[in-house]
């Protein structure tokens, strides 16, 4: 082993990471080479001096400054639950707005159809009655909720009428199936 090879392997030699054969070879070179012994002595003296340097401590106001900065961090941190709640709330709001718009469009379409039929002189056939009913309540299989076509067009009225009609129509509010129920022209 020459000096270059010894210096290349020196870290592993110093940290005990060489194989026993390599370690023996490096030890043999060290014993025989004054230059490498001076190198090792200089390194160890330097490391001892370095490790004896006083360790720095943090300055007096370090803790207070850090706490002040962390308070600022806490102020901008939105709690995870609140973040998720607001996200879910936003999604529900978007879904609600989307439903209302769809509902409005459908109601508007139905009103236009009814008005067109009224204008052409077409009148709906009477509602079929359920057999043995105590009062003329339409069967749920034939008649469903009728949306008001004479009320002023207002989205809230549409929702309210659906809600009010739900107990009457069995199975809840459903769309009026015009071609099946009403007699066509």
């Amino acid at each position, binding site marked *: 082993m020459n000096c270059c090879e010894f*210096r*290349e392997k*020196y*870290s*592993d030699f*110093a*940290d005990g990471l060489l194989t026993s054969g390599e370690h023996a070879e490096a030890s043999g070179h060290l014993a025989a080479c004054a230059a490498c012994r*001076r*190198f*090792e*002595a*200089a*390194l160890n*003296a*330097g*490391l001892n*001096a*370095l*490790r*004896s*340097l*006083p*360790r*720095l*401590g*943090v*300055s*007096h106001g*370090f*803790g207070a*400054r*850090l706490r002040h*900065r*962390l308070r600022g*961090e806490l102020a901008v941190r939105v709690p995870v639950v609140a973040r998720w709640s607001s996200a879910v709330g936003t999604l529900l709001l978007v879904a609600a707005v989307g439903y209302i718009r769809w509902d409005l469009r459908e109601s508007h379409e139905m009103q236009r159809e009814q008005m067109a039929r009224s204008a052409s002189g077409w009148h709906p056939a009477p509602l079929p009655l359920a057999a043995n009913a105590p009062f003329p309540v339409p069967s749920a299989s034939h008649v469903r909720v009728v949306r008001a076509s004479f009320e002023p067009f207002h989205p809230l009225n549409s929702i309210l009428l659906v809600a009010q009609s739900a107990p009457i129509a069995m199975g809840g509010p459903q769309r009026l199936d015009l071609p099946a129920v009403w007699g066509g022209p």
Partner: protein
Amino acid sequence: MTLAVRDGVRILGHAPTTPFAGLEDAQVVQAFLDGHERAFDELVSRYQTRLLNFIYRTVGDRERAEDLVQEVFIRIYRHLHRFDQTKKFSTWAYTIASNLAKNELRNRSRNPLVLFQTIKRHWEADHRPLQFEDSSSRPDDLFRKRHLRELVEQSVSQLPEHHRVVFVLRELEGKTYEEIAEITGCNLGTVKSRLNRARNNFAAIISPHLD
């Protein structure tokens, strides 16, 4: 004022002790995540000195090192909920510190004059920390010791940045090769190679000045 000795390191300054002092790092982290804010004080108390010395030896500026240590703790506070608790907290803290130190050096390298002035300023006697001299030593021995200390500080700062980080982590912070690899994001072979070069360079710098 020495508050405690942990891992052979004196904890200086005025950090208060906390109820979590006897717990392992992983337990303290869990306590913080469970809502005990004071557990974070314990983490600060444990690591402020170590990180300060590591960053100081890497960047060479004491004031800036302290700012960077604060930044380390801010980042830890921000991201602790995402920390993989199967890993060592110590390694994670040092990784953040190492990255901040490297960024600092990178920013400074764009202005070499700032770097030179910063290092030079902190070598003036009145900026160095107080040292209690050994009154039993001869004056020329004391002079040689002080000279050697200045020399070794200078030698470390002269090492190339990527060698210096590995050298400080190994020789001063006592990290294993595996920990250094994780902290620096290098493989084991690279760590060994850099450490070997750092040791060789360090010895070469100080050797002419020794008897």
